[in-house]
Every structure is written in structure tokens, then in C-alpha cells.
């Protein structure tokens, strides 16, 4: 794989992470990180949506009339989101989690990462790099989601994937961790760690 593609694939995971560096998609990362399972399903859904929308729009990029390009993007992105929602509803294993995530699956449409990457990347690049860029940005988002959800489920409910971990040792669950503000505190800590590693992100 040539270095440019590698950069496209790896940059959004850490150096240019959509949540911690671009600070996009904060809203849903507060809402769906109470349980690890929810975060995992959400992460996969976003990866699919960002990847496929970037691919489709990159294929269409030369034919889209520039005056209505945002509308065309919206139509394609909403189609992907509805498809993901319909598929999640169809499987026994994911039906309950889809109900639990309820509106947040539909709200992937409004996730700035999706539209942001299409505008910034897919409309100016070939389909294959666009697909990689979409997938990688979804994965970067998902990674942070899973880290946050790991701590929130572990400290908030004493479980991981619903299996008792800390609960076995008589851990008293912390309700603050379940509430949305704690996700912000955790996100703040993650950004702090990243900025102390990556000095070029620090403002003078």
C-alpha cells in the first residue's frame, strides 16, 4: 500500500481523530457510551455510514451539480442511515440494541463527521481513497466511543458487555459516571493525554 493511502487510513485514528482533534460528533459520544455494547453497535453503524456514503458520493462527484451538492449528500447519507437502521431492526441480536439507541441511529445523519468528510475529502478524491477515508474516520470516532464506554460501563455499572466485573468485588456503582457530564470529563482527559503526546496540537 502506498504511503498516501496509509496516511489516509491511519491519520483519522489518532493524529487527526475526528472527536479529539476536530471535536466533531461530541453529542452522540455523550449519549451512546453508557454501555459498551451500545457504543460498539453505534461505532460499527457510523463506520458503515461514513464509508459507504463517501464511496457513493465520490463515484458521483463529477456529475453532482454544485448548487445542490449538499442536498444530494444529505439524500445519500440519509439513505445509508435508514438502511443501517432497517438492518439492525431485522436481526434478533441487534433489535433490542437498536431500540435502546433509538433516535441516535437516525441522528447519524446529523453527525458532522459524515458530511464533513464528504465535503472535505470524498468530493475531491477517487472512490477507493474516499472509501478508506470514510471507514477510517468512522473507526477513529468509534475508537474514542469505545474507550469512553469502557470506563463508563466499568465504573458506572460495574460490568463490561453486561458481564459482572467490578460487581464481583462488592463495587458500589457510581451514578455520576452514568450521567452525560462524565462522558465530557472522560473526553477531556483523552484530549489531554493526546495533546501531551502530540506537542504540535498545543496552542502557544
Amino acid at each position, binding site marked *: 500500500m502506498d504511503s498516501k493511502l496509509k496516511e489516509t487510513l491511519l491519520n483519522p485514528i489518532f493524529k487527526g481523530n475526528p472527536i479529539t482533534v476536530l471535536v466533531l460528533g461530541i453529542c452522540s459520544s455523550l449519549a451512546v457510551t453508557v454501555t459498551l455494547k451500545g457504543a460498539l453497535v453505534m461505532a460499527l453503524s457510523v463506520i458503515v455510514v461514513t464509508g459507504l456514503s463517501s464511496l457513493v458520493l465520490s463515484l458521483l462527484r*463529477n*456529475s453532482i*451539480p454544485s*448548487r445542490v451538492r449538499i*442536498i444530494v449528500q444529505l*439524500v445519500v447519507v440519509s439513505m445509508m442511515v435508514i438502511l443501517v437502521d*432497517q438492518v439492525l*431492526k431485522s436481526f434478533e441480536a441487534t433489535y433490542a440494541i437498536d*431500540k435502546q439507541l*433509538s433516535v441516535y441511529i437516525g441522528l447519524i445523519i446529523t453527525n458532522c463527521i459524515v458530511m464533513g468528510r464528504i465535503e472535505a475529502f470524498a468530493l475531491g478524491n477517487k472512490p477507493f481513497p474516499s472509501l478508506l477515508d470514510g471507514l477510517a474516520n468512522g473507526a477513529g470516532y468509534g475508537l474514542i466511543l469505545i474507550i469512553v464506554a469502557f470506563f463508563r460501563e466499568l465504573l458506572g455499572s460495574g460490568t463490561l458487555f453486561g458481564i459482572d466485573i467490578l460487581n464481583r468485588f462488592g463495587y458500589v456503582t457510581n451514578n455520576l459516571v452514568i450521567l452525560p457530564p462524565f462522558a465530557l470529563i472522560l473526553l477531556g482527559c483523552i484530549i489531554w493525554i493526546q495533546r501531551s503526546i502530540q506537542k504540535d496540537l498545543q496552542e502557544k
Partner: protein
Amino acid sequence: MNTNNNSYTVIYTTVIVVLVAAVLAFVSQSLKSRQEANEKADTISQMLTAAAFGTKAEFQAMGNAAVLEKYGEEIDMAFTIDAEGNKNDDLDIESKQVYSPAELKKLDYIIKGKQQGETALPVFIFKNDVTVVPVYGAGLWGPIWGYIAFKDDMKTIVGAYFDHDSETAGLGARIKDDPDFQHEFVGEQADFESSEIFEIVKGGAPKDAQGNSIKDNKIDAITGATMTSKGLEAAIGTWLGAYAKYFTARAAATAEDCCGDQAQSCCCDAETAGCDDKTNEEE
């Protein structure tokens, strides 16, 4: 090609929208039967949760097939009643016929007189004499519905489960997500003689000296979810109102039953005196 002229733009957007619509319609149609099966198992697990056969999480962990099987084991009869509270058609227990939210919505319109149609309200009676009926109404953002289970005195609530389409997470959504809220219903008594059959009140339901909720027809509303609480109260009021005639008739029938059958120890204390009088006269 000039992609900026008007006719190109119009044709392009039209084609895109029609294509997307076709894809979505096709996917929706081909996944429909799977989704309906999931929804049906979910509805059944809601009824079983209301009837206190287990918690929703337990049923979720069991999987669809086991939930349907459990329902098959526990259900005694299921039928519809008309507006006068008379028993109508039987529902198909074999195929585990239940009502989807969409069907409840239609019945809700009929009850409220917004739509013409035959009143055919479902009643589900389980083998342990628990009767489960649905409720349906409007929350803040979308429909809310659920199931309430009654003991055979037809007024004491055994349990309740509520679901919603799009209530606010953490506030209105607590009618579904907060087991404590649903637990408040247990032991409460619907009052079919009063104009307020069941109330969800702000500022605290009546409590006894120990601070426990008095088992009347009032429970506490959810803080921060006034509209959802009011909507739920209205939904319960409207639907139990529609069932009132049937419930009162069945409560009376149960009371008579225990007077007639002396071998059975009298189950209704209030009626005991009446029963004794009757038997004395017969002697």
C-alpha cells in the same frame, strides 16, 4: 458537460431521489417479515413483563423463540371485547396473535371517536388469572403504549410495562427504561367508579407514615417529564375507561362465583357478609 444548468439540476435531483426511494422501498419490503417477527416477540415479552413473569432484560436474554414458547405455556385465553364490554371473537392463541403498536393506534382512534370502526379491544388472560390489557396514547414527541396486568379482582395492578417511540432519553424515556417507575404501579388499585380511573400526580402521591406509597389509584409522575407523564395518564385513563364495563362486570361475576361455591373459601372480604346472609336465607 455543464452540470450547472437548471434542467440538468432538476433532472439529476429527481433521478437521485427516485433511485434512493426505490432502494429503500425494496429493502424495507424484503426485511419486513423479519422485523415483524422481532416486534411481535418484543410485544409478547412486554406483556409477560407486565404480568410479572420476569423482567424485560431476562426475556431479552432468552431470545425470540423462548419468549414465544413461554407465552404459549402461560396464556390461558385471549379474545376481544366490544364497546359494551361483551366478549367477542377469540384471538388465535396457536399463532400467538398480539397487537402491534400500529394496530393499537387504530384502536386508539376508534376509542376516541376519531375514526369509524368496530371496537374490538384485546384482553389477554394468563393461567394464573392475571389479565393483561394494552394502553396507547400520545407522549411528548410521539406515541407511547404499554401493558397493564390486573389480578382477578380486576382492579389491583400486578405490574406494568411501557414503551415509547421517541420520548426524551433520560426524562420521558424513563417510562420504559426505569424499572422503579414501572414498579410504582405494583399493588395500586384502579378506581373504575371514579371519573379519574388512574392518576399520575405531580408533587407526590399520598404516602403513609412510613413513607410508602398508599396503594390507591395515584402514583408519582416523573420529574422533568411532565408532558410524558400527563400523556401516560391520559392513555391509561382513556383505555381503562374503554375497558371499564368489562372489568366491572367481571369483578361482579368473580364476587358472585365465590358466593355460589361454598367449598371455595370466600375470596372477597367485602362480600363475605352478603354471602352469609344469602346462605342463611337458603337454610
